[in-house]
């Protein structure tokens, strides 16, 4: 199996304590002063050239945020965050609005190259890699530096651009949908994001259009002490389809960095959105120093009948993950799906899962969660499945498996099930298993090394979810999982 072999080679080729993406790019940055205040928000808004309503929206969120308390119900622990010790705005200086890759700072392009992002638009367009037709909107800290495939998408009527641009160019669309799935007041981190978000992606697929390519965004936190607050808004109009992939890496840092994104998806009648995430942010070192705090609110609204939203996530990075990509199944016959692989190693803490909220009739949802805990990590699945009074015929199937590697880690499953409709049928299956020493010995006796055996067993464990990822990312995700578990055996 070459993919496994490749994984092994990859694992071998990296140093134990050396996070592969731990490099910094030296680009001049422009920052707002440290800390959060109305002035900083005005500064961000002015930098973005936003209309007055947007500024007002932010300021309202800020006022609200001041009255809110940080949530503490998740099974994670961390030192108190000083929200006044963070830069809320950082942008590469020499970057007004590049028209092509030639205008992008070569340092930034080099960074992407190291990350292996297929940003070489010319090559792809020339047909070098015809199999991976991916449009990339790369977010480098707070500003999108390059947007590819714009022209081709435009022909299809698809809008795919930095949200800061969309606010200026399509204010009515943005205003209609922004905050309609994750309200400004939703939760502490979402409200903070509403006040200070700097960039992110905006996607609109017109009625009946099948987006001609996978859309992809890479996020990267680069500047020291900058929180990254992206905001993503995806709207699939009636009968349309879009598949979107988000990949995240961040360079190695000693200070913890806050990442509080908000993603909103809206699927109208008969529309389908697939949203896939591969997240490998810096998880901190073996002692638990450093690493990203990933406190993210992601929610999809199946607003129209027969609409479908699928979340697929491969989470291997971050020191702390607090993340519950959810579906509101509002339209009759709508469907929500959540496929998740959450890998934790070292001192990582993961509290992740989903919410499936059945409001419409004959709505269905499916949850497949695979948690893998190694090292001294704690890995919690937390999920809510609920049926509203009117959700006649609601159906859910949940399968939640945990795999333990070693005996110093923990796996926890916290399912909440609420049904207010007697016709709802909810199924929940959960297993916890451990790679046994006997299994390891058996594999080794056949010639596999410990690492190879672990990779093989883990890949077998997660393959149901990997199959949900777009092809070109499935292999990458598989590699990532093996790299994350490196050093977890023995």
């Amino acid at each position: 199996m070459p993919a496994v072999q490749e994984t092994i080679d990859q694992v071998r080729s990296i140093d134990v304590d050396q996070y592969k993406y731990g490099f910094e790019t030296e680009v001049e940055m422009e920052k707002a002063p440290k800390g959060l205040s109305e002035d900083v928000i005005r500064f961000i808004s002015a930098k973005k050239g936003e209309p007055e309503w947007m500024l007002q929206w932010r300021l309202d969120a800020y006022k609200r945020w001041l009255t809110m308390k940080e949530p503490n119900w998740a099974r994670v622990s961390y030192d108190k965050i000083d929200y006044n010790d963070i830069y809320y705005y950082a942008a590469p200086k020499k970057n007004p609005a590049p028209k092509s890759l030639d205008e992008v700072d070569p340092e930034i392009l080099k960074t992407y190259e190291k990350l292996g992002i297929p940003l070489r638009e010319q090559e792809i367009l020339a047909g070098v890699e015809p199999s991976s037709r991916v449009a990339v909107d790369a977010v480098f800290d707070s500003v999108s530096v390059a947007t590819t495939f714009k022209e081709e998408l435009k022909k299809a009527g698809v809008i795919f651009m930095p949200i800061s641009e969309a606010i200026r160019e399509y204010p009515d669309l943005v205003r209609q949908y922004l905050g309609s799935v994750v309200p400004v007041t939703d939760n502490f981190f979402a409200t903070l994001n509403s006040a200070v978000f700097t960039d992110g992606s905006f996607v609109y697929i017109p009625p009946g259009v099948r987006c001609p390519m996978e859309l992809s965004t890479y996020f990267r936190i680069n500047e020291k002490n900058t929180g990254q607050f992206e905001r993503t808004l995806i709207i699939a109009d009636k009968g349309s389809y879009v598949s979107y992939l988000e990949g995240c890496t961040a360079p190695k840092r000693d200070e913890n960095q806050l990442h509080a994104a908000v993603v909103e998806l809206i699927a109208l009648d008969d529309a389908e959105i697939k949203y896939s995430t591969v997240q490998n942010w810096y998880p901190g070192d073996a002692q638990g120093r450093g690493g990203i705090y990933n406190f993210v609110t992601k929610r999809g609204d199946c607003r129209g009948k027969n609409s479908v939203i699928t979340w697929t996530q491969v989470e291997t990075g971050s020191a702390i993950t607090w993340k519950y990509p959810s579906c509101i199944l509002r339209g009759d016959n709508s469907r929500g799906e959540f496929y998740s692989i959450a890998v934790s190693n070292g001192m990582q803490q993961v509290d992740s899962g989903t919410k499936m909220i059945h409001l419409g009739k004959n709505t269905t949802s499916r949850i497949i969660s695979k948690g893998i805990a190694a090292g001294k990590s704690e890995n919690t699945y937390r999920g809510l499945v609920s049926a509203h009074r009117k959700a006649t015929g609601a159906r859910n199937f949940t399968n939640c498996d945990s795999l333990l590697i070693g005996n110093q880690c923990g796996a926890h499953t916290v399912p909440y099930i609420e049904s207010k409709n007697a016709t709802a049928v909810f199924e929940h299956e959960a297993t916890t298993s451990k790679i046994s020493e006997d299994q390891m010995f058996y594999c080794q006796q056949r010639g596999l090394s410990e690492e190879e055996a672990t990779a093989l067993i883990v890949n077998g464990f997660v393959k149901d979810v990997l199959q949900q990822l777009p092809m070109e990312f499935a292999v990458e995700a598989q590699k990532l999982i093996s790299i994350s578990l490196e050093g977890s055996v023995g």
Partner: protein
Amino acid sequence: MLEIKNLVVQIEDKRILNGLNLTVNKGEVAAIMGPNGSGKSTLSYVIAGKEDYEVLDGEILLDGQNLLEMEPDQRAAAGVFLAFQYPLEIPGVGTMTFLKAALNAQRKARGQDELTTPDFIKQVNAAAAKLEMPKDMLKRALNVGFSGGEKKRMEILQMALLQPSFCILDETDSGLDIDALRIVSEGVNSLRSPDRAFLVITHYQRLLNHIVPDTVHVMHGGRIVRTGGKELALELEANGYADYRESEAA
């Protein structure tokens, strides 16, 4: 081929092997018989390199290489194969995936090229046909939901595929019905060659009617207490292990 000298092994402070000596030559099929608890399975695990066993003294040489200094996967690459008494289930891992990964890992360790997929499939199918194995078995996760007999056949299939130079069969006959015993034995016999040695561990003479040994060793109290030809197995079948138990009591 295999040379074991004065092997002393304990597990959790319990002495299992007490100065065991054993030599198996190239091309030889050696049977080890003995009552329960005589240390037969421990011997097979220690040769293959299972953790938990503490080797206090002695050495195990395979073609002059010191096995005790090698990891289990290195021993496998050096030619050691253990057909398990209770083969492990590996959920989620397809049988073909596992076989290919194992075969290529060993080839790589020996500096050989990986097998191409068509060649690999051809080899597996040929081996499976010989063992009268239903094709759908190869499509399932390794050993998951297999019957006892199917698991044993899968062990022999792996043996045929990996072509080891030193094969240990740990009570391969247990849990096999007569037909399965015949098929498995034929599979083993077809692998007999002047370059390959076998160590066949069993309680019963039955298996040795099918896999006829060159030598028979009787193991008791953690050492080899008697060595003879194939007729020794018949004698044990007739008299049982009572003689050896008495000598222990005395």
